[in-house]
């Protein structure tokens, strides 16, 4: 928080500004280009002002760090093909300062966000009532996944009382490790799935939300609802910069003892560089239809479709 002219700090500032292509970065003391984005004071002046633009904005993220590339336009095109951190350059064999600090910022924000909760209005929009697993709180949820795979006694009673028994498809939504995944994607994917399943003439059970939820809870849920197929939309553990990816798990007649080998999965559902939720909803409907047609999911379904295709 000091306003003294630390050489290290100046080097950081200069590097960041250079990455951003901001003019007047060499400690000229003058204003720093459009928007007055930043000004680094000269070492001799006592009125240092540091006022940085946001390095997490898309255009800042796309700034190239490679010094004198063989093909600058080609490098930009390569970088545009992926969300991976390409074209960052190096300081010796190490990352440059701007990309190092951007990485630390992205990690920091996921640390701050991981304990979020799904807002009530997100659930209310699709009439999802809330039940809990046996994990009492977030800390126990992180350390005891087994408890997140079982409905609490109260949840079991609530589901038995409120849900249709024996539908073709039971839809559940769970927070998993990212409440943001549900908050940001549910409104897009959910109507596509419901519409698609109805068009296919399938009966849909009474949907609900599961707090402190693990994938394996599908087995426990189906002990109560006895659906042909259980579909679980659940938040994935946050990645750097993408804290809102959702997964869709589907299992044919799940029951205790069934594993991921007997489930199908569409992962990385997000508008931030993954499968768009609208598109993912269509994939889900397609997979549900295939599963019910073949009476199998997971490895078994892949075997069956491999031999028939």
């Amino acid at each position, binding site marked *: 928080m000091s306003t003294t002219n630390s050489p290290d700090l100046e080097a950081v500032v200069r590097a960041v500004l250079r990455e951003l292509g901001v003019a007047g970065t060499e400690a000229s003391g003058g204003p720093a280009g459009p928007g007055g984005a930043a000004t680094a004071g000269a070492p001799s002046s006592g009125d240092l002002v540091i006022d940085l633009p946001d390095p997490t904005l898309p255009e800042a993220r796309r700034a190239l760090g490679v010094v004198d590339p063989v093909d600058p336009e080609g490098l930009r095109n390569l970088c545009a093909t992926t969300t991976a951190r390409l*074209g960052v350059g190096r300081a010796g064999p190490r990352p440059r300062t701007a990309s190092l600090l951007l990485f630390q910022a992205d990690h920091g924000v996921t640390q701050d966000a991981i304990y979020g909760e799904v807002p009530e209005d997100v659930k209310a929009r699709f009439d999802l009532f809330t039940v809990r697993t046996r994990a009492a709180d977030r800390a126990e949820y992180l350390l005891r996944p087994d408890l997140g795979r079982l409905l609490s006694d109260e949840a079991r009673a609530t589901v038995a009382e409120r849900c249709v028994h024996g539908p073709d498809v039971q839809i559940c939504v769970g927070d998993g490790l990212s409440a943001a995944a549900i908050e940001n994607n549910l409104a897009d994917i959910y109507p596509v799935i419901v519409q698609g399943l109805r068009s296919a003439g399938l009966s849909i059970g009474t949907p609900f939300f599961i707090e402190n939820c693990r994938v394996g809870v599908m087995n426990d849920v189906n002990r109560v609802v006895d659906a042909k197929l259980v579909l679980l939309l659940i938040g994935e553990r946050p*990645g750097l910069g993408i804290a809102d990816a959702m997964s869709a798990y589907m299992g044919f007649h799940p029951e205790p003892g069934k594993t991921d080998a007997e489930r199908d999965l569409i992962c990385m559902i997000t508008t931030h560089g993954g*499968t768009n939720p609208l598109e993912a909803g269509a994939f889900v409907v397609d997979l549900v239809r295939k599963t019910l047609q073949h009476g199998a999911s997971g490895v078994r379904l892949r075997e069956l479709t491999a031999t028939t295709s």
Partner: protein
Amino acid sequence: MLLRTKLFGETHEFADVKEVLAKANEEKSGDQQAGIAARSAAERVAARLVLAEIPLGVIRQNPAVPYDEDEVTRVIDDAVNETVFGEITGWTVGDFREWLLADTTTGDMIRRVSTALTGEMVAGVTKLMSNLDLIHAAGKIRVSAHCQNTIGLPGTLASRNQPNHPTDSVDGIRATIYEGLAYGSGDRVIGINPSDDSVGSVSRLLEMTYDVIQRWQIPTQNCLLAHVTTQMEAMRRGAPVGLVFQSLAGSQKAMEAFGVSVAMMDEAYAMAQKYCWTAGPNYMYFETGQGTALSADAHYGADQLVMEARIYGMAKRWKPFQVNTVVGFIGPEYLYDSVQITRAGLEDHFMGKLTGISMGCDACYTNHAKATQNDIENLAVLLSAAGCNYFMGVPMGDDAMLSYQCTSYHDAPSLRQTLGLRPLPEFEGWMEDLGLIKDGRLTARAGDASFFLQR
């Protein structure tokens, strides 16, 4: 069987070998979750005192899962060299530790004893070793393998080019491969975790990576880390597979959770020898990680170190080019923080080498574990000192598909230049020819993905 000791005047007694092994383990949240960890620090040491006196022959007689019930146990026990075993059956676990560390014990002597070890023996001695013990002993053991190039030679450190993309974009993955190659990552494999496990998508990425390898004449191998059945189907349809991948687990039941079995892996191995485009003779790539058996409820009351060691014992059957523990991927419920992740990385690397397989490490962590990038950089340095065969290379350590962080494309050259290590020899020659490396250091041309737009 009586298994007890006094410690500070208190008697600690254990019911069986499995309990001694579990309670002797370093603190791991996974063992605590399973309810089998020591209940106090003193009990942990008491278990180690008892463990140090158990003969290796008794450990062999008490596998985590009985021989008749579990094909993983059978694979490992059937492969024991009985002549060598006869020489060591009377050694206690404590004797074994001191023999491994003795200055008169060479790497070749250890490799010979490896032929007589079961997973439980390997895990047992590991529990008696400190972190520096694990580094020092592992440093003696070199396990080399060959596919298109040679991994595991002394003085080398390899890097998997891991160019994952959230939607498997061919262009995006190719661009990421270029970035990695420009840093000298990719000597161990160009290996992609696909988002879409279908045969069509996997084959498309195999074709693209094979094309890059051919166009640039890169002495390396490609691999798509799809389910093994997907890769087998891709091979049947003629896709160019360099290495065949599968994740493995330490019991038959845990293997079933991954949708695989010993027979299926035997078939995959036979197919690899028949269809892979690479020279071999090592064609297989396996990934492991402490906690997988417990996560599949298939650990049989054994601790996660024992179950991990059993994977290595089984993996040896298929003469892998490379095996790595994805050490921090599984999450805080198995390895809670950087202390546990670091310890597990050192343990797994040592155990793999002691078993006799080419061993590397995906030094990594998830965002819900108490760890940062600094912690896995530390682990990479420790493992490099221990002679680890390879790490992962990912753009800035941030995997765009798998939502976890591991080592960066920058880290292999940084470790090499800091510790005097080199890329795999064939690959270093290739980089030198292109002018990307000189005398083991990156040149001014390195680090620029657009270099690879020139062909």
